[in-house]
């Protein structure tokens, strides 16, 4: 069977790991999972930030780092590489912003702007 090497997922016939009968018993044991590892779960929840916020923070951090690196030696390779990193992250940030703007609009509108001739998108003016 083929395997999608990129994600390492096996897209062959899905194997059911959990049989229906087993599922009924699961809730009994896992009713209060937080009681077993409360601290771990809380830490996990707080790390999840929005991707856009992440990139903006990275941009800010990289600018600070670049200024520090260049304060020592403005011509060195490290300084240049630091500013290059700023540029790369700024580009990524602006792409993320564009994606977010595009994704926020109505999916039907989006589809119809690309394919106005399909049945769903036909408009009848008269």
């Amino acid at each position, binding site marked *: 069977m*083929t395997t*999608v*090497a*990129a*994600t*390492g997922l096996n897209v062959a016939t899905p194997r059911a790991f959990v049989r229906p009968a087993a599922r009924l018993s699961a809730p009994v044991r896992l009713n209060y999972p937080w009681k077993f590892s409360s601290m771990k779960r809380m830490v996990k929840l707080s790390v999840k930030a929005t*991707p856009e916020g*992440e*990139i*903006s923070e*990275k*941009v*800010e951090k990289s*600018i*600070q780092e*670049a*200024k520090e690196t*260049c304060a020592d030696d403005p011509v*060195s*390779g*490290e*300084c*240049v*590489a*630091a*500013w*290059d*990193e*700023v*540029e*790369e*992250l*700024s*580009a*990524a*940030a*602006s*792409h*993320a*912003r564009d994606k977010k703007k595009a994704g926020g609009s109505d999916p039907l509108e989006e589809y119809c*702007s*690309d394919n106005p001739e399909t049945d769903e998108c036909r408009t009848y003016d008269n």
Partner: protein
Amino acid sequence: MAVSTIYSTQALNSTHFLTSSSSSKQVFFYRRHQPQTNRSFNTTITCAAQQTVVIGLAADSGCGKSTFMRRLTSVFGGAAEPPKGGNPDSNTLISDMTTVICLDDYHSLDRTGRKEKGVTALDPRANDFDLMYEQVKALKSGIAVEKPIYNHVTGLLDAPELIQPPKILVIEGLHPMFDERVRDLLDFSIYLDISNEVKFAWKIQRDMAERGHSLESIKASIEARKPDFDAFIDPQKQYADAVIEVLPTQLIPDDNEGKVLRVRLIMKEGVQYFSPVYLFDEGSTISWIPCGRKLTCSYPGIKFNYSPDSYFDHEVSVVEMDGQFDRLDELIYVESHLSNLSTKFYGEVTQQMLKHADFPGSNNGTGLFQTIVGLKIRDLYEQLIANKATAPAETAKA
């Protein structure tokens, strides 16, 4: 994904044209062991496999490559999207006819590696040109490849993704024409040359919304990258078949806003399957202001220029547009006077520009020339395919 049909050896005895409805054609030959004979055989196997047309697009980051890509894929129809079900941070775009590969995926050093060595992404030392050449060659011959992914968010090299050979492969990035072997694989190449003032204005527009950025930091970033850019990226423009040069306008004296642009489309003469756009008559020099009695334009108006020229010791034709479009009828008027646009119907350029009226540059020469180059690429593709179709495939078993 292997769909194999096993043909018996009898079928392969004579010249046989193998056709298949699948988009990727792969022919496997299995030959039984035969006793040695004295006769020498010539076995020529030519596959009528799908020929991939490879286009290269070079530009610095933040210079409108993604806009160009969207316009280009739109000319062929359909929207280009990242591969479904794969890495969400993949840089690849796939549509029906085209696949766009970002050359950043061939970085040999990730962000930390580059910081340690003190190299920028512009430096050839940070890129694996051997792998780039291998994979582009494979895709061009119709073989699927496992292409690495460079994650721009984390700065790391992610697990590779499978890329199927498309009808049109576009490689966009900083170094499509840097390596000579890759350059020879390209059927057409484009370079986006943005002048320093315009680059500064565009980057300000892009980055001022970001917290942490200031005018100084943007300026410092551009200045720091300039030496590497001039040394490694800029020289690629001499190899390009078409250069889109973006300069500040000459219509407004002392303009430093960068809103109105002067865009030049420099087209190399003598490129196979590529006939340059011209105004009035090929090879002549003409300066044209369309605004007048038939067309009223608002300030600063539009000015066109067409002339033959010499660019890095090559014969070129240059079409230049200064100013911006305010109304639809300006666009259609201009389109009706340009020749050799490779449109399929009257008004196609205008239609494409209107379709993407929200893209940056839709009201000036950048959008116009990007659209025209897209139509030229479509024309080139169709000519190439027509040429390849007239040469029938033969499989001769000795």
